[in-house]
C-alpha cells in the first residue's frame, strides 16, 4: 500500500478518471463519501492525509502477488484463472431454485444453505431489479428470502457499502456475493491494518463478470423503450447472437450488444479479473448450457464449505470438460490482455500499469 494518500487523491486518481467501479468499499466508513445508484463521490474533502478509502479501492495500487499471498498464503501458478483448487460444473439440486435463477442457481442454493445451517448469520446480496431497474444491495438473514435475489443485472451496486453498514450495526459472520472488483476491494480491506467490517466476512462467493453498465447511460437508453419498473430479467445469450434480451411483463425486447456496449463503465476496460480470482468460490455461466454453472473452488475454506454443501445434497455437480475449461481460461486471458492494453493506452506508460502491479511472469504473459 502506498502511504499518505487521501480521499482527495482518490477523487483525482479514480473518480475523476472514470475508474470508480462503485464497489462501495469507501462508502459508509466516513461521513464524506456517499453513493447514490452506482455513483460514488467525495462530498467534501475530509482534510486527512491518509485514508482507508484510498487503501481499499480496487483501482488504487493492487498487487496481485501480494493479494494472492494474503488470501491463499502463496502466489498463483495459473495466470488465467488465478489460484484454485477445483473447477467443475454445478447446479442447484432444487429445481425451483434453478427455475428462478439465471443459470444453474448455484449461488442462490449455496447462500440459502449457508444461512440455513448457520455457516453465516447474514448475507450481503443484491436484489437485481429494485427500483427502476437499479439493483439494491441488501442484508439478508433468512435463507427463504433468496427468491428475490436470483438473477443477474448488468448494472452493479455498491455491495461493500452495505457490508460496511452491516458492520456498523455490529453484524459479523457475513456471507457476501460480489463481482470481481468488489471481491478485490473486500480482500484489500481484510488484509489492511485497519479494523474493518470486511473482517467479519466469512464466505465470499465471487461472480464471473466481463463488464458492468453505467446505470445512468443504460437506464436512459431503455427509458423511452420500456417501463423500467417492469423489467424482470436481462440476459445476454451466448455468441454469436450478439444481442441483449430485456424481459418485461409486456414482452421481450432485443437490442444489439453493440448498442449496449456504449454504456459499459470505462473502468471495466481496465479490469484484470473476470472470474473473481480472490473469492472463496467463484461462480459463472457455462457457455452454451443454460441450467448449469461453472464452479471454481479456490480457498481451503471454500472447499470445506462446498464439500459440506455437496454432502447435504444442495448441488448436482459434474466435471467441466477440458475444452470448456480451456475456453474459460482463454476468455479470462483475453480480458487480462485487453485490460493491460487499455491501461497502456490510457497512460502511455510502458513500465507502470496504473493501479495494477503484476509479477514478472504475468507481465511476460500479458504486457
Amino acid at each position, binding site marked *: 500500500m502506498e502511504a499518505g494518500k487521501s480521499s482527495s487523491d482518490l477523487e483525482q486518481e479514480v473518480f475523476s478518471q472514470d475508474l470508480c467501479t462503485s464497489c462501495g468499499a469507501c462508502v459508509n466508513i466516513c461521513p464524506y463519501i456517499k453513493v*447514490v445508484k452506482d455513483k460514488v*463521490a467525495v462530498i467534501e474533502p475530509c482534510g486527512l492525509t491518509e*485514508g482507508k478509502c484510498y487503501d481499499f479501492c480496487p483501482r488504487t495500487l493492487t498487487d496481485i502477488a501480494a493479494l494472492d499471498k494474503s488470501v491463499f498464503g502463496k502466489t498463483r501458478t495459473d495466470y488465467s484463472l488465478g489460484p484454485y483448487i477445483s473447477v467443475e460444473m454445478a447446479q442447484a439440486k432444487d429445481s425451483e431454485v434453478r427455475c428462478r435463477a439465471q443459470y444453474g442457481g448455484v449461488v442462490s442454493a449455496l447462500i440459502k444453505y449457508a444461512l440455513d445451517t448457520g455457516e453465516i448469520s447474514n448475507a450481503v446480496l443484491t436484489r437485481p431489479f429494485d427500483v427502476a431497474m437499479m439493483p439494491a444491495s441488501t442484508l439478508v438473514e433468512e435463507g427463504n428470502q433468496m427468491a428475490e435475489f436470483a438473477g443477474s443485472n448488468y448494472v452493479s451496486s455498491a455491495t461493500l457499502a452495505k457490508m460496511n453498514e452491516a458492520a456498523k450495526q455490529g453484524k459479523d459472520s457475513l456471507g457476501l456475493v460480489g463481482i470481481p472488483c468488489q471481491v478485490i476491494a473486500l480482500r484489500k480491506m481484510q488484509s489492511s491494518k485497519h479494523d474493518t467490517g470486511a473482517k467479519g466476512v466469512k464466505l465470499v462467493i465471487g461472480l464471473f463478470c466481463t463488464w458492468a453498465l453505467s446505470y445512468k447511460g443504460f437506464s436512459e437508453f431503455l427509458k423511452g423503450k420500456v417501463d423500467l419498473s417492469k423489467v424482470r430479467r436481462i440476459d445476454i445469450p451466448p455468441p454469436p447472437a450478439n444481442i441483449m434480451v430485456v424481459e418485461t411483463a409486456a414482452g421481450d425486447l432485443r437490442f444489439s450488444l453493440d448498442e449496449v456496449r456504449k454504456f459499459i463503465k470505462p473502468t471495466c476496460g481496465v479490469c484484470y479479473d473476470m472470474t473473481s480470482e480472490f473469492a472463496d468460490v467463484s461462480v459463472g455461466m457455462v457457455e452454451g448450457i443454460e441450467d448449469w454453472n461453472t464452479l471454481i473452488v479456490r480457498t481451503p475454506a471454500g472447499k470445506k464449505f462446498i464439500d459440506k454443501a455437496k454432502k447435504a445434497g444442495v448441488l448436482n455437480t459434474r466435471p467441466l470438460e477440458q475444452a470448456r475449461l480451456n475456453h474459460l481460461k482463454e476468455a479470462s486471458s483475453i480480458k487480462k490482455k485487453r485490460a493491460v492494453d487499455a491501461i497502456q493506452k490510457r497512460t502511455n506508460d510502458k513500465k507502470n500499469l496504473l493501479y495494477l502491479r503484476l509479477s514478472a511472469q504475468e507481465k511476460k504473459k500479458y504486457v
Partner: protein
Amino acid sequence: MVTLELNQPGKTVLMMGDEAIARGAIEAGVDFCASYPGTPATEITESLARVADRFNIYVEWSTNEIVAFEAATAASLAGLRALVAMKQMGVNVCADFLMTVNLAGTNGGLVLAACDDPSAISSSNEQDSRSYARYADLPLLEPADFQEAKDMTKWAFELSEKLGLPCILRSVTRLSHSRGNVKLGELPEKKRTAKFEGVYISGAFAVAQHAALHQKLEQAREEFESSPFNFYVGSRKAKFVIVTSGSGWLYSREAVAALGLENKVGILKIGTTWPLPEKFIIDHLKNVTEILIIEEVDPFLEQNLKILLAEQAKTLGPIEVYGAKSGHRPPFGELNQDRVTTALASIKGLQPKTRDVKYVEKAKEALAYIPPRMPTFCTGCPHRASLWAIKSALKLDGRDGFVTGDIGCYSIGAGPAGFFQLKTIHCMGAGIGLANGFGKLDRFAFNQPVIAVCGDSTFYHAAIPALINARVNNSNVLMVILDNGGTAMTGFQPHPGSGCDALGRPAPTVEIENICKAIGVEVRVRDPFEISQAVQELYDMLQENGPRVMVFRRRCFRIEAKEKLQEKYYVDQSKCIGDDCGCARFCSRVFNCPGIIWDQEAQKAKIDEMVCTGCGVCATLCPRGAIMVRGAAS
C-alpha cells in the same frame, strides 16, 4: 395592557421606533394595515396586529409588498385610513403601483412606511428609498427621533387626505429598532365607514394627472414651510450650519456638543425632505457661508439642496457645501456620532474628540475575548440538512452543478453554514428567475445542473411567475423549496401556507405543492432530516430534464422546540473514537451545528445540551453511530 393601548395623553413612555409609528397610526385612527414582513419594518405591523381588535383595525400579512400596498390603497379609496409598512426592497416591489397610484390619487389617508436598512445589517442590499418620493412626486417625511416617528405618522395621514396622495414615511434601522421616550397623544374615536365612490384611473388622463400631481407637490411644499418638523437650533448668527435629516439630527447634535461648537455651529433640521420647504431653508441660510449636510446613505438632501442653492445664488451668495460629494461623509453605510464628529472636526480644523483612551484600550481588550463567529444556522435548523443534501446530490451528480439562491434564513448558506452552496443571491424570487435562464443554455454546451433554492414565504411572494415561466419554456431547473412553515427570518410571521392570519386565528392555506401541480411541474415533498433519502431523490431529480420541484418540508426548529419537548441527544464517548475515527471531526468541524462541540479534555465530540434542540440529524451522519438519543442507548 400594552403601551400602544394606553389612553393617557401626555404620559411619556419608552417605545421602539416601529411601535411609535404604530402608535402614530393609532392616534390617527388607522383602519387598515397590510404589509409583508421585512427588517426593520416588521414590528410596525406586528404592533398593530396586537391591538387590532381593541381599535377595530384590519391587519393582514399580505403575500408580498405590492399586494399589501394595493390592498391598503383600496381601503383608502373607500375613505378609510390605511398604513402599509415594508423594508427598502419592498418599496421596489411596490414601484409599479407607486408610479400609477401617484397619478390616480387616493382618498382616505394612506401612508407608506419605508424602513431602510443602512449598512445592510439584515438585508441583501443597501438602498435609500427616499429617491422614490422624488421619482413618484410624493411627499416624504423623515422622522429624526421617537417622538417624531409617532407625531409624523399621525400627521402623514392628515397630509395624505389633504393632498389626495400617499405619503412616504422613511425610517431607518437605528430609529425603527431602538427605543426612546414618546409622549402619548389622544386616542381618537373612530367612526369611519367604508364606501367607494369616484374613478381612480391612471393612464387615460396620465399627462393631465401628472400636471396635477406637480401642483399637489407645490401644495405639499406650502404645507411644509410651516411644519413643526423643520426647525433650527443654535445661534442665528452662526456662519456655519449643519443641514440634517432623519437619524442625522441626533448625531449632529452630539457632534456639535462633543466639539463644543454650540455657539458657532447652527443645525437646520429638515423633517419634510421632499419637496423641500424652500422658503424656510433660504430664510435660515441667508447669512451662512458654509454648510455640512448630514443624512444617512444617499446624498438625497444634499443634491436637492445644491439645486436650491444654485437657484438662489443671487440671494444667498457663495456657500461652501460639505457632505458626501466633498468626501466628508461616505454615501453608504450607517451614520454614527463618530463619523459626524470627525467630519465636523476636519472642516473646523479641530482634533476630533475621541473616546477616553482607557476606555478604548479596555474595549480592545474585551474584543480579544470574543471568538470569531461566522453567521450560522440555529441548532436543529432544517436548512443545514437541506443544504448538506443539496451539496451531496450535486457532488454525486458530478457535472459541476450549482445553486441559485434567494432571500431567507437560507441565504447564509452562501457561507460555511450552508457549505458555500449558494452562488447567487439577489432579490426575492431571483433564484428561480435566474435558474430559468441557466436552464435554457443547453444549446451553448451548458450541461451544469441548476438548483434554485427558495423559501416557502418567498415562493408565494415572488417565485410563482418564474416557475410558470420555467414550465412553459421547459427550462431545465430543479427548484428546491425550503418550507419551514413560516416567514422565519423576520420572526415567524404567517404566510399563505401557514394556516393562520396576522392575529393568529385559523386561516385557509394555499399548498405549495398544489400550486406546483397546477402549473404542471413534477413535485415531491420530503423531509430533509431523512437525509439519505433526500440525497437520493435529489440526485434522481437532477438526472431529469425540464422543471421539477422538491419541497423540503420541516418546521423551523426554533418554533418546533417551543411547541413540544424534544429528544435529548448525547455523544456516547465510548463509541466516539475522536481523531482515530477518520471522520476528522465531521460533526463539530464540517457539519458544524452549534450544538456539537469538541470536548478538549476527552478529545471526543460532545453535545452542548444547552443549545441542542434534538433534531437528531447529526446522529444519522456520525460514521460510528456514537450520537445517541438519551434513554434510547442500547
